């Protein structure tokens, strides 16, 4: 029982990180129907920029005096950096191809992904970069169960961001405009919504969330490396599809499910086949509900 609860906590933490990355996939997909393969790289870049700023602050000596402030600043700066990166990537590599066949953009996205991960390798080195470990040591102990402070931070920050994003998308005019652009770009232009700005915004928000996930991953695992974006990228993409791609609530749900299945699969059945379980769940869900858990059938709702 103890280890069950421990695994549950592990699963939620991992699922939360996946959910944050999956949101970027799903938002971009919702707006321009593109599987943004480079999204995993935004996540990795976020992790790197986070450690760059954290160690910069540590070098200045602020880390000891104002740890919370430094951490917050690093988060915000990394989010801004990734948003800047993503918006630029969209403008250079995706926007000119918007009217072309979708596979062309897919390929371009793949090229960007290869470029970015190798760019990270060349600028940051092939070696793993360590995160400052002084932050968030220790945790709460309940008998055999350990909840580290870091896990608490990850889960609560993830939850806060998800709520904020939901508010943004469903309660504000900008969010309405994002949903409108996703449904009909020509029509939204006819009601004065600049789809280019909305697409940039979507990329920016998605990448900023990925940056948060990247830093949390770096803190949680103690290090970042240049190809760290690939595997979580695929998992998060699966999560987005599982939840119904294009659907924000679905992405969160999908992320949690994939994270849980992975942890419980590894914990109770077999560590080496854990990814198989995740994919089987995915295939099973899609077999019975071909548009994912929360997905709507786009073909039918379009007039």
């Amino acid at each position, binding site marked *: 029982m103890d280890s069950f609860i421990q695994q549950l906590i592990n699963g939620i933490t991992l699922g939360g990180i996946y959910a944050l990355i999956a949101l970027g996939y799903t938002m971009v997909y919702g707006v321009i129907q593109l599987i943004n393969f480079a999204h995993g790289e935004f996540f990795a870049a976020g992790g790197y920029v986070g450690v760059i700023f954290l160690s910069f602050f540590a070098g200045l000596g602020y880390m000891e005096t104002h740890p919370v402030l430094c951490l917050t600043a690093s988060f915000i700066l990394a989010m801004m950096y990734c948003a800047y990166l993503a918006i630029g990537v969209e403008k250079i590599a995706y926007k000119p191809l918007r009217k072309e066949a979708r596979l062309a953009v897919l390929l371009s996205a793949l090229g960007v992904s290869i470029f970015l991960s190798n760019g990270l390798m060349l600028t940051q080195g092939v070696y793993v970069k360590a995160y400052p470990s002084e932050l968030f040591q220790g945790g709460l102990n309940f008998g055999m169960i350990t909840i580290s402070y870091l896990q608490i931070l990850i889960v609560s920050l993830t939850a806060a961001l998800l709520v904020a994003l939901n508010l943004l998308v469903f309660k504000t*005019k900008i969010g*309405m*405009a994002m*949903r*409108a652009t996703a*449904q*009909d770009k*020509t*029509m*939204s*232009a*006819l*009601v*004065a*919504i*600049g*789809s280019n700005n909305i697409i940039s915004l979507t990329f920016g928000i998605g990448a900023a969330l990925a940056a948060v996930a990247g830093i949390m991953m770096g803190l949680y695992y103690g290090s970042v490396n240049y190809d760290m974006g690939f595997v979580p990228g695929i998992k998060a993409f699966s999560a987005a599809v599982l939840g119904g791609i294009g659907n924000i609530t679905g992405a969160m749900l999908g992320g949690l499910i994939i994270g849980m299945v992975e942890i419980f699969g590894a914990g109770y059945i077999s560590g080496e086949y854990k990814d198989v379980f995740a994919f089987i769940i995915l295939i099973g869900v899609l077999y019975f509900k071909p548009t994912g858990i929360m997905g*709507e059938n786009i073909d039918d*709702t*379009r*007039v």
Partner: protein
Amino acid sequence: MSSEPILELKHVYSGYGSIKALRNVSLKVYPGEIVAIIGANGAGKSTTLMTICGIVPLEKGDVIYNGSSIKRIAPEKLPTLGLCQVPEGRRIFPRLTVEENLILGAFYRDDKPEIKRDIDHVYSLFPVLGERSRQQGGTLSGGEQQMLAIGRALMTKPKVLLLDEPSLGLAPIIIHQIFDIIADINKNQGTTILLVEQNANLALQAAARGYVLETGEITLEDKASSLLHNPEIRKAYLGE
């Protein structure tokens, strides 16, 4: 009729890649009037409206709105200048509620109380929308969607409203209702309307002047009433 046209197309050529949809189209719309463009399927009526709004790129010629060229202005800037289109097939946002659709019509505006008042105004024009304000747009019937589309366009506070086939696929009774409201908008709010219709009879009855578009070219231009009685038109478009 005042002397200066509010919207003018000067020798416009446009098309989709190698396919030329419009050739040398010139037309004028004066403030406060209803102008109809009639023509058969594929004559380029919708393309004309899409070219005005910059969605279909202009190849040659110029579009003058309110005294200045708008051919270099991005499509999404036009509604802020008072030029708004209700495209063919309504194209409301199906997974947004009725109210959200209307709010988006006022996307560029910041005046919250004013927007609230305008929404109420739309609801008073189309009471059925008021009843369904929390419903998703996609669940409305065709007529209701058309009303929503017009209502949403009104939210942009247009000076010139471009209407594309408002009668398409609707029951006759609904069509009449909608055309009444169009006339009402024109009369009471002074909105200039450029109407594109396949249903020539209806359109010419509502309009003051009309243009006939055939395979991308304007072939006739006249008062609506004279067009309505033009035997050729009657033969070609009114089924006589």
